[in-house]
C-alpha cells in the first residue's frame, strides 16, 4: 500500500509534482500513466526517499520508506536500468544489496534464476545489454521478497522478447498477490496489465480510475447509426439516460445509452432503413490522449 498526500516537488521555479494525492491499493496492478515529464519518475523517487518532497507526504505500508527497519522487504523498486556500478558483476551487485539486510546468498541465487541471469551472473554489469540490465534491476527489486513492487517504465527501450518477458513477470507478480505499481507513457502497454490507473499530467492527477471506467467516460459505449431518416429515428430512440447527437443535415447519429441491438429492432419495427450500425470503439490510447492533451501541449511549450 502506497499513500501519497498532497505530494509536491519543486525544482526552483519548476514544479515537477504538484499536490499529488493517490493510493496504490494492495494486491492489484496499478498503472501510473502520463506523458513524459508528467512527474512520474520524480514521484517514484520520492516514494523510496531518493528525493525529498518539497511538501506533502508519501508512506509505504503506513510509514515513511526510510522509517522501515528493512526497507527492501517493504517495496522493491526498479527506477533506472543502470543504478549499478559497471565494474561489478551482477552477482556481486546483488550480494552488496543483500548484505545490507542480511539476506542470504541462497536468496540472491534464487532471484538470479528467476530473472534468467544465470549465464551472465559473473559477468561485469557494464557489458550488459539494456534488457539484461533491466533484468538485473528487477532481480534487485525482488531481492527482499517485497509485498509491493514498483517499476518505472520497465519496458522502455526493450526488444519484443524483453517486453514479453516483463509482461509475463508482472502478471506472475500480481498472481502471487503482490501490489504492483508500474509507470508508463504508453497506454496500450498499460491496458494489457493494469486494472487500476492513476493518470497524471503536469504533475497533477488527471484521473484515478479503472481501465474500464476510463474508456466509458471517453465515450466508449457510443453507437454510430447512419439512417435515411435521422429525425424520426432520433425521436423514437429518445428516453431517459439516452443521449443522441448528430449534425443537422447529416444522416449520422451518435447514440449513447442504447445498444446496437435495441437500435436495430426499433428501426426495423418502424421500417426506417439503416446503412450503418457500429459500436464506436474508443481506444484506450484515445481516452488517454483526451485526458492528457492539455498537459502535453503545456509541456511542449515549456520545453
Amino acid at each position: 500500500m502506497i499513500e501519497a498526500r498532497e505530494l509536491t516537488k519543486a525544482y526552483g521555479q519548476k514544479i515537477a509534482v504538484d499536490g499529488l494525492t493517490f493510493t496504490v491499493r494492495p494486491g492489484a496492478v496499478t498503472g501510473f500513466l502520463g506523458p513524459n515529464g508528467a512527474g512520474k519518475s520524480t514521484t517514484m523517487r520520492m516514494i523510496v526517499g531518493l528525493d525529498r518532497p518539497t511538501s506533502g507526504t508519501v508512506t509505504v505500508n503506513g510509514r515513511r520508506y526510510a522509517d522501515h527497519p528493512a526497507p527492501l522487504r517493504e517495496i522493491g523498486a526498479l527506477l533506472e536500468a543502470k543504478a549499478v556500478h559497471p565494474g561489478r558483476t551482477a552477482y556481486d551487485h546483488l550480494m552488496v544489496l543483500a548484505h545490507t539486510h542480511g539476506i542470504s546468498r541462497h536468496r540472491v541465487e534464487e532471484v538470479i534464476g528467476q530473472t534468467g541471469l544465470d549465464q551472465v551472473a559473473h559477468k561485469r554489469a557494464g557489458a550488459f545489454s539494456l534488457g539484461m540490465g533491466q533484468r538485473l534491476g528487477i532481480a534487485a527489486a525482488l531481492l527482499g521478497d517485497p509485498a509491493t513492487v514498483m517499476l518505472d517504465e520497465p519496458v522502455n527501450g526493450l526488444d519484443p522478447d524483453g517486453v514479453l518477458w516483463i509482461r509475463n513477470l508482472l502478471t506472475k507478480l500480481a498472481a502471487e498477490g503482490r501490489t504492483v505499481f508500474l509507470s508508463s507513457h504508453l497506454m496500450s502497454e498499460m491496458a494489457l496489465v493494469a486494472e487500476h490507473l492513476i493518470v497524471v499530467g503536469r504533475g497533477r492527477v488527471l484521473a484515478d480510475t479503472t481501465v474500464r471506467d476510463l474508456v466509458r467516460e471517453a465515450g466508449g459505449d457510443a453507437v454510430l447509426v447512419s439512417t435515411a431518416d435521422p429525425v424520426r429515428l432520433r425521436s423514437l430512440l429518445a428516453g431517459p439516460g439516452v443521449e443522441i447527437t448528430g449534425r443537422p443535415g447529416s444522416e449520422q447519429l451518435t447514440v449513447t445509452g442504447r445498444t446496437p441491438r435495441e437500435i436495430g429492432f426499433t428501426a426495423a419495427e418502424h421500417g426506417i432503413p439503416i446503412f450503418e450500425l457500429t459500436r464506436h470503439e474508443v481506444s484506450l490510447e484515445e481516452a488517454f490522449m483526451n485526458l492528457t492533451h492539455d498537459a502535453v501541449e503545456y509541456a511542449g511549450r515549456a520545453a
Partner: protein
Amino acid sequence: MSISATYEGVTRRRVARAELTKFRSLRSSWVTLGLALLFLIGFGVIAAAQARTGNDAPGAEGATGYSMALFGVTFALIALGVLGVLTSSAEYTTGMIRSTLAAVPRRLPVLWAKAATYGVIAFVVGAVGALVAFLATSAILSGTSSAVSLSDAGVVRGLLGAGVYLGLAGVIGVALGVLLRSTAGGISALVGTFLLVPGLMALLPDSWSDAVTPYLPSNAGASLYALTQGDGALSAGAGLLVLLGWTALALVGAAYRLKRSDA
C-alpha cells in the same frame, strides 16, 4: 518464493559488510592498493639504493634511513586518497547510489560504513607498506652511517603514524567524494589540499605562514610520522588531533550533503 523466517533489517554491521563487498568486488580497488604499496615500498628502496651507491636521492641530503624509507608516503597518499574519492564518487557517476540509498534510505550509515571500512583498509595498507619499506631500506643501508633499526626510538610509533596518516587521508577522500559527487572534483580537492596548498603558504606574510602551516592536513600528517620534529612543527599527538579535526570537518560536510540533497 521463499520468505526466510528471520526478519532481516538494516544494521550498521550489515551496511559495513556491504561496503566491504563493494570495495572487494571492483578490480580498480586492488590495482590502486597495489600501486599505493608499490609507491610506498618502491620509492623507499630507490632512495636507500641511491644513498648506498653514494648518489644521494633528491632531497635526501642528510636523510636518515628512516626518512628515506618513508620517502614514498606522499605518493602513496595520492593513490590511497584518490581511491577513497573513487569509492564514493563512483557511486554517483555510475548511478549505483540510487541502489545504495534505496537499500539504506537513512543514508548516513552508508557514509559511516564507507569511511570506516575504507579508513581501516587504507590504514592497514599504509602501515604494512611503511613497515616493509622500512625493513627493505634498513637491509639495504645496513653497515652504513644511515643504518637504522626497528628498535630505534620512535620508529614503530612513526611507522604506525604513517599508516594513520594514510588511513585518515583515505577517509578524507571518501568524504570529498560524497561532498562533491564528482571524481574530478574530489581528486582536485584532495590533491589541492595535500599538495598545492602547502606550496601556496609561501605567498602569505611569514608570520601568518608560520602560524598556519603546521596546521595544514599535510603538515599535521607529516608530524605524525616524523622521527624528530622540525622547528614550529606540531608534536605527533597534536598532529593527530589536528588531522582528526580535518577529517571530522570533511565528514560533517559530506554528511550534510548526503542527508540534505536529493540522490
